[in-house]
């Protein structure tokens, strides 16, 4: 097991180097001079050259990448062109908001997916199943950013129940913590609903298929023949096995929850990593963008690893090599 994890981590290193190299080259090919954002518009040409030299932008791309890589292994991801903060600091500031939104939505998604998929799989082709199927198709087909816009339109502009943007009421900086938490949760409502409705659909559909497939298995028929009640069969025997594929899917969805939330964070001005990344794209803030890409890639590697380990853990027939 330990050897397996170690092997996978070692195998991930060339992948991460490949990802960062590819992203780096693409960014460097982009026209538009980041130093123009870095400096005052009235700067002289000599000063501009000096800034470019200081940032190493006059060197060949490969040289720049090796420099970035070397620093990365020493824990230095450079400085934001825009805010001049170290990339690590800028990203750590944004991490809690993203993690909070991602974790809460993951929990809510799971809490809804498991019963919905189970019931709709068991009661295949009933009205309930058809409505669940309809809503999962709807969830998969709706642009999430538009769903967010509609929620803002309905619940923030038309009936002003929830704030349309932000993380916390700025006037609350001196308030006691329960009030702060309440304010954060209140701000989180709309982005959370958007994330959940967007993420719920595919998982529910997947779980429904899992349940239907499992209920057709011989051991379920055998159990039925031995006179086990349908309830017992469903909850005790089918549910666990049908949940297996979900574990894998969840591991694979983990990075998607974070990088996928980027438009949602952007629309609701939620101060997370996604919003930071989108702003970095528009500002050509390459160090931040490289940091964001590195972070999501690492997350993806971890997600895959967790999926494999969890799969072997719930299904003893699977051995990790």
């Amino acid at each position, binding site marked *: 097991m330990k050897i397996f994890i170690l092997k996978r981590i070692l195998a991930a290193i060339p992948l991460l180097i490949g990802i960062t190299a*590819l992203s780096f080259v693409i960014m460097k*090919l982009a026209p538009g001079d980041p130093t123009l954002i870095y400096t005052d518009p009235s700067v002289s040409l000599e000063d501009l050259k000096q800034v470019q030299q200081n940032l190493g932008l006059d060197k060949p791309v490969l040289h720049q990448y090796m420099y970035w890589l070397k620093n990365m292994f020493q824990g230095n991801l450079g400085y934001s062109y825009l805010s001049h903060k170290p990339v690590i600091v800028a990203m750590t500031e944004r991490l809690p908001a993203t993690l909070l939104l991602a974790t809460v939505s993951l929990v809510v998604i799971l809490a809804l997916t498991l019963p919905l998929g189970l019931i709709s799989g068991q009661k295949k082709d009933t009205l309930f199943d058809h409505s669940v199927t309809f809503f999962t198709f709807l969830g998969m087909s709706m642009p999430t950013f538009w769903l967010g816009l509609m929620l803002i*339109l309905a619940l923030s502009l038309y009936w002003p129940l929830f704030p349309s943007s932000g993380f916390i009421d700025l006037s609350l900086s001196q308030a006691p913590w329960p009030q702060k938490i309440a304010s954060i949760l209140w701000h989180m409502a709309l982005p959370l609903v958007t994330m959940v409705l967007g993420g719920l659909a595919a998982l529910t559909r997947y779980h429904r298929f899992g349940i239907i497939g499992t209920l057709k298995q011989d051991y379920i028929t055998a159990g039925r023949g031995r006179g086990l009640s349908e309830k017992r069969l469903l909850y005790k025997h089918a549910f666990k096995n049908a949940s297996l594929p979900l574990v894998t899917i969840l591991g694979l969805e983990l990075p998607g929850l974070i*990088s996928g939330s*980027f*438009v949602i964070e952007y629309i609701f001005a939620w101060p997370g990593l996604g919003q930071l*990344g989108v702003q970095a794209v528009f500002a050509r803030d390459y160090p931040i963008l490289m940091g*964001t890409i590195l972070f999501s890639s690492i997350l993806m590697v971890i997600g895959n690893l967790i999926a494999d380990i969890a799969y072997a853990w719930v299904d003893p027939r699977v051995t990790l090599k």
Partner: protein
Amino acid sequence: MGRSKSDAKITMKKIWAYLKKDKKTALALGFLFSISLAGLLLPFLSIDPNNFDPLNIQGPQPPSWQHPFGTDDLGRDLLLRCIDGARVSLMVGLIAMSIAMSVGTFIGAIAAYIGGWVDQLLMRILELFLAIPSIFLILTIQIMLKPSIYNVMIIIGLTSWMGVARLVRAELLSIKERTFITAARARNIAPLRLLFKHMLPHAINPMIVAAMLGMGYAILLESVLSFLGLGVQPPNASWGNMLENSLAFMRDAPWMALIPGLLITATVMALNYLGDALRQAWDPRA
């Protein structure tokens, strides 16, 4: 090929029977057909969707008999712009999907057919593409190139071929070992002919399903890009940039945000239903 032709006939019959039974799929097909037709016919009607109604120029007008979908901030008729946007969005979806299908089929087929280190290398490249958060990649490339409808098609196509490649590779790997391929090899059929005439046709069903889903995905991505101002550029209409345009008028003209989004949702949903119906027609286990 005689046998596979009669196979196709049976499949068409099955699909037809399925459509008669499944009204939802028939509805999906009808919807896609009518918006495509409307979008394609619009340029021949000598109506310019960018024309504004001089009487209505004082800001967005709510839906009325004269303008069933209302007008936008410049007094342009939203029904016409939605139909115009349908052509753009469907075209982007169709071409981006075709690019993804071609690249994916090519890479998947090469990997499965040659195998060995070529397969290994191609699969590592595929993983690389899967691992990069594609939305950042697309945004970066889109900023680097001039935002245009053609760039949107190419970029979406070139960043969404991985699923198809995996699918084609898996299908071909299982076909490769079957007796009729060994027999064909023994008859010394040229490798490319073997690949395209004898192996790929057997993978066509799941590929068509993947194409349906891929087109929906491409339409969704186009709407995100255009919404962020990096896709189809004004004055040309696409559903995504109509949504971007609606942002400033959310409070006073909600119909500007509502209608294009509903159209995107309905179109992608129709494609998903169609893909699902095809899968069920071909694979009764699902």
